[in-house]
């Protein structure tokens, strides 16, 4: 009976998840296995305001006939996953064989779009996530110690970076870090280097994006930690104070162990969010120096006059796989903790 009640309870959300998440993922996966039919070409005489010319065009009727027979396209299996735009097995093998030393292998690897994007995506995830957690906790502890009168306004101001839409936030910062913008010009004066440009060098672009990511996500971890801090029992803290514990010791030995489960929660959310980093790359026009997996998907669909649906689908599946791999250790740990509590 308990099982039956449980089933009815989760039925609405289960239906929504199957319809809106599971089925689309299956359809994207199916799409990633197909490429478009061969386009049948013909040469025609075309005239424009600038004169007439013999040009190659698509024979629409002939190509349409192929599409009618098999609307999904030509079955390609996992070849799209293996091609140069994705896992690039052949190119990686060649790079490994021809490379003299690890450094030249990695520089060849970074020449492939998928690995280049993966490098930035992973660096972003593993640098931004810990900073967000530590900084969020520090802000939460700071705000918690403030007198009541100024607490409300401080919380509101601290949340602003998260309230601002990511694209708008990054665009505003993009203009501010311009060589003629307030931050860019100030940095040039501080470092006494008139050529300093945060947009030009790969290293500085990466740092800019990391700083933006931390600035944008810290409020999320702050507000979660702040909520957690309200539930830390006063008695334990007072007992620690009577025992002569300093503020640091109280945080280290009372507060942090108490809100540790929240760290797992924030870690899960941040790993997922940061692995899908996208808006700041568009906002900062950073694609020359930094691309992410999500940006590659966007570029396949929106970067040119034609859309590469199969390629975008394959990158999407690889992104889902990446998120799964990243989250597995955290999930296993949570499961073990959960089991310990039950026993």
């Amino acid at each position, binding site marked *: 009976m308990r099982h039956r009640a449980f089933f009815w309870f989760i039925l609405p959300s289960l239906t929504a998840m199957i319809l809106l998440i599971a089925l689309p993922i299956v359809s994207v996966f199916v799409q990633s296995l197909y490429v478009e039919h*061969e386009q049948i070409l013909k*040469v025609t005489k*075309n005239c*424009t305001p600038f004169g007439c010319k013999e040009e190659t065009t698509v024979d629409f009727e002939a190509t349409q006939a192929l599409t009618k027979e098999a609307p999904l396209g030509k079955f390609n299996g996992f070849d799209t996953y293996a*091609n*140069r735009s994705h896992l690039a097995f052949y190119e990686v093998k060649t790079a490994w064989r021809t490379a003299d030393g690890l450094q030249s292998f990695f520089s060849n690897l970074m020449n492939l779009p998928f690995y280049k994007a993966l490098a930035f995506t992973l660096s972003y995830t593993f640098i931004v996530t810990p900073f967000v957690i530590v900084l969020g906790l520090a802000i939460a502890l700071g705000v918690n110690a403030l007198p009541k009168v100024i607490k409300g306004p401080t919380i509101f101001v601290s949340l602003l970076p998260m309230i601002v839409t990511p694209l708008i936030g990054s665009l505003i910062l993009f203009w501010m870090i311009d060589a003629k913008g307030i931050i860019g010009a100030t940095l040039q004066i501080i470092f006494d280097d008139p050529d300093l440009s945060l947009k030009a060098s*790969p290293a500085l672009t990466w740092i800019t994006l990391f700083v933006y990511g931390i600035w944008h996500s810290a409020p999320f971890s702050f507000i979660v930690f702040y909520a957690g801090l309200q539930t830390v029992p006063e008695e334990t803290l007072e007992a620690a104070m009577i025992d002569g514990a300093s503020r640091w010791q109280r945080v280290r030995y009372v507060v942090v162990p108490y809100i540790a489960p929240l760290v797992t929660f924030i870690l899960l959310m941040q790993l997922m969010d940061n692995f899908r980093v996208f808006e700041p790359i568009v906002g900062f026009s950073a694609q020359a120096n930094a691309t992410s997996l999500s940006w590659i998907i966007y570029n396949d669909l929106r970067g040119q*006059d034609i859309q*590469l649906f199969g390629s975008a689908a394959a990158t999407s599946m690889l992104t889902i796989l990446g998120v799964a791999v990243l989250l597995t250790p955290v999930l296993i740990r949570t499961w073990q903790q959960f089991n310990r509590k039950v026993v």
Partner: protein
Amino acid sequence: MYFKSITLAGSMALLSSAAFAGCGISGGNVSILSNDFAAINAVTAAAAECAGDGVEVTINATSEHRDLQVAALSANPAQYSSAVISNGSIVPLLNEGLVRSLDDLVAKHGSSLNPNQLITMDGEIMAIAFMANAQHLFYRSDILEQAGVDVPSTYEDVLNAAEAIRDQGIMEYPVALNTKTGWNLGEEFVNMYMGTGAAMFNPGTAEVAINNDHGVATLNMLKALTEYSDPDFLTFDSNATAALWEAGNLAMATLWGSRGAPILDDEGSTEAITSATVLAAAPTWGGGSTPASTLWWDGFTIAKNVSDADAEATFIAMINGISTDMVKANNDLAPWLIEGYVPDATAAGVAATAAGGANPYPMLPFMGTLHGALGGELSDFLQGNESAEQALADVEAAYTTAAKEKGFLN
């Protein structure tokens, strides 16, 4: 996104004279998808004057039009009865067979058109062009005079002039091109490569042919130019370069002709800068005689998946949109291809580029794929991280991968 709907009541209130209403259309729905800049907005606004007497005109003017058009016109009935396109963006519509032949409509209602406005593919009229565009040289006559150099006619001259300007301490970064990674950078490569006179594809095939000496020379010229550009050059799109120009930070730039009117007007810049700004032909280079630029036209198409009545109503409305009256009211917005246009200073650069024999941007079905590959793979070279040969090999590999997926190559 900017969406306006002019209904019967609204249009009667908007129009100063009700005599235009209807344009002789008996009824129907006219819905237009277009890019969003001043010249095109003038055309669609004039087409909207046909609203009334049972004719409804809606306009969606958005810079995202290229991403919407294929899906919107694939629907049956199509979401829009007309898509305003250029010679680049018409190709996906032709590839998918989404626009109709205009032969009958032109015969019936197109007597006011110039013959060179008709875009014909294999003898069938598929679009009506109304304006031309091209990237060409903008220069500041006062700065060139101060530096004591002649007006450049080749990119080698541009480099020499830039060196002189830098040497004399007038400007550190006097040059700009639209070199933002992606579509813009791809366009600069295509323009520069056109100056060599070489073909981009092996004739009659979809095999790319840029991985050669011409390609290397093209890349080296682009790199030499960007060395006189601000280090942020990989973020420069058309808005950014126009703003730099209006701020007086540039002496020579290759910009779109359609930026001429907004730059030369009395907004956003000073009199000293605009009065010294001259629009000239796109330079040649490497001893070639073809200007290193591509010619573009903007025009309109009529969707295939709409009723014949709506198609006819749309055609009449668009013909009204590109009438001589519209051109007379908006003469300085673009180099119009329409009867009654009087060329002025804002069109001088495009006219000179066309007269110099520049090639049109290729309307090949796989051109967009190559353009995308170029835009994505060239920034490493321009930053000095890899050789020109490696960059071209990357472009070729990226293009081949994408062209295989699109079915252009096996």
